[in-house]
């Protein structure tokens, strides 16, 4: 293969600079600060800090509330990722078959994408409102006295539903374009080779969609872990006491409302390490099985 080269080192460096600057200023620098402050105990009024070594980390290990939040985060992320991917894939497969009015249909399905997470959270509050929310009424029909912001399970359910609802359009767009990039003749060849539509989907369509699905898997896990902050904040209604929250929300809560910057920093360092492990795991194990054309 022919490769184009640069005459001097300065041009490529200059071209990369904006990107590197952004990463440095908005990621490495704060990450470095977080790492440093995680070894200190800060005065709540900002008058100074004391070096405490690994104490912020060891106290996390013994903290039952932290363990509970970690447990909820795992269940929440798995549910949000799985449901939003599965529902979006189903919708994309169905939308791909629509011939008449396909564009209108697709646009309608994508609209939700334009809603900001806090707004989605607010819409969630309206939907799950104690006295007027249609979803509350829906759950009451099945005998569940749904109390958003009061009952732990009710709030958790609402969080998952709103987060999934918000993420479906993104996944839908990617899955649909992934489906449409599969050559028509390959699917037709499969129609001649395999009578079962389900068999064709799992043996031919889905493997060809795997690169898209893998990309979305990473995006969705990141979304569930970090980007649902606004939804959680809105649905919790400022009552963190008895409500579920994710690790990211707890970092914010302990750091900015509890004024425990050291403990909060230690939590974010733990999160960074977790994400790092997760990413390595995904690329090592999952991506190896994927066929890129």
């Amino acid at each position, binding site marked *: 293969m022919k490769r184009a080269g640069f005459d001097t080192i300065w041009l490529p460096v200059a071209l990369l600079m904006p990107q590197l600057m952004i990463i440095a200023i908005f990621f490495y620098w704060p990450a470095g600060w977080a790492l440093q402050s995680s070894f200190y105990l800060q005065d709540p009024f900002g008058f100074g800090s004391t070096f405490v070594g690994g104490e912020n980390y060891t106290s996390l290990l013994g903290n039952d509330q932290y363990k509970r939040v970690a447990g909820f985060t795992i269940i929440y992320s798995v549910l949000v990722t799985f449901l939003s991917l599965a529902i979006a894939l189903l919708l994309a497969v169905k939308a791909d078959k629509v011939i008449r009015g396909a564009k209108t249909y697709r646009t309608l399905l994508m609209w939700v994408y334009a809603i900001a997470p806090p707004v989605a959270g607010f819409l969630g509050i309206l939907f799950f409102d104690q006295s007027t929310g249609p979803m509350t009424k829906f759950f009451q029909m099945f005998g569940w006295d749904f109390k958003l912001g009061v009952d732990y399970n009710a709030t958790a359910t609402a969080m998952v539903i709103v987060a999934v609802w918000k993420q479906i359009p993104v996944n839908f767009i990617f899955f649909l374009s992934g489906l449409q990039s599969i050559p028509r003749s390959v699917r037709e060849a499969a*129609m*001649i*080779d395999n009578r079962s539509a389900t068999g064709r989907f799992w*043996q031919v369509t889905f493997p060809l969609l795997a690169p898209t699905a893998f990309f979305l898997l990473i995006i969705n896990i990141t979304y569930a872990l970090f980007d649902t902050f606004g939804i959680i904040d809105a649905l919790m209604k400022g009552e963190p006491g008895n409500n579920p929250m994710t690790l990211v929300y707890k970092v914010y809560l302990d750091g900015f409302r509890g004024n425990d910057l050291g403990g909060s920093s230690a939590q974010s360092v733990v999160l960074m390490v977790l994400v790092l492990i997760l990413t390595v795991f995904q690329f090592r194990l999952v991506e190896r099985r994927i066929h890129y054309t």
Partner: protein
Amino acid sequence: MAQVSLESIRKVYPNGFQAVETTSFTIQDGEFVVLVGPSGCGKSTLLRMIAGLEDITEGTLKIGDRVVNDVDPADRDIAMVFQNYALYPHMTVRKNIGYGLKNRGTQAAEISAKVEDAAKMLNLTEYLDRKPAQLSGGQRQRVAMGRAVVRDPALFLFDEPLSNLDAKLRNQMRIEIKALQRRLGTTAVYVTHDQVEAMTMADRIIVLNEGKVEQIGTPSEIYHNPASTFVASFMGAPPMNLIEAEMGQGQVRINGYDQLLPVPETYAGSVTMGIRPEDVVLDDRGSVTFRVDILEELGAHRLLHGAIADQPFTVMIGKDDTAETGETRITLKPEALRLFDKATGQKL
């Protein structure tokens, strides 16, 4: 192995476009039939209707004795080779070839044996564990062929399978496909826009134009006795010369030209006269004046492009004949003259 019959088949798309006009023909058991025509003539639509990938608007399609209008493509006992090969990119060659067998409940040992046989027949044995992306165009085409032959279907369908290959490979694959079909004795329907492929491969050719069958016949019939001016100009390279003329009393007069030529037909009126470029002889005592504008050297023969009385005309001469630009006299072989109705283009 089976005979395929199309009875009053018609195709209209939901937007009202009629892709195939009402058509009937029968393909005999073991026959190699080529559907040929310019793009948009409905040849692929016809093939896809036979495959079951396209609904049939009207008419009855039979493969063997069975009406298959509403039969699933997988149950029609057909195999199809696509223009862009349509291999499964995530499967190895072995799995690509065996996929259809696996889905029909064939035993693993039998699949493996059949795949090995097909691979051997197509010189693919050493590539069995590669993925399609690691193969050349010709090899991918062979895999697509392997996928078709391994199932031993009643009918092969080919949708312009060679048009993605370069000229040399195309000629080679043309012969291989034809030989394979002969050896297996499987009925085949082959779609192409390339008239050379049609002429060389077909037992019978079906020429299509704008959704209509123009002519059905052996390559020789199609070439020598085209049913219309469309067939005359579409089949053969260079195409048949078509010149406007007036006819009456066993004689024909080329428009813009005063000389009369004798013809065996009795017809009076305006006609289009057709003659193949190789049926024209350079002759000093010839009765027609031909103005040569361009000499085209093709090695085995030469083409002289020019005009008779300002109507474009081409003459083919052997490599040993001499010719130069300017006016020359020619003779048209009377038995090679074909006459078409000027208005309808149909053969008289």
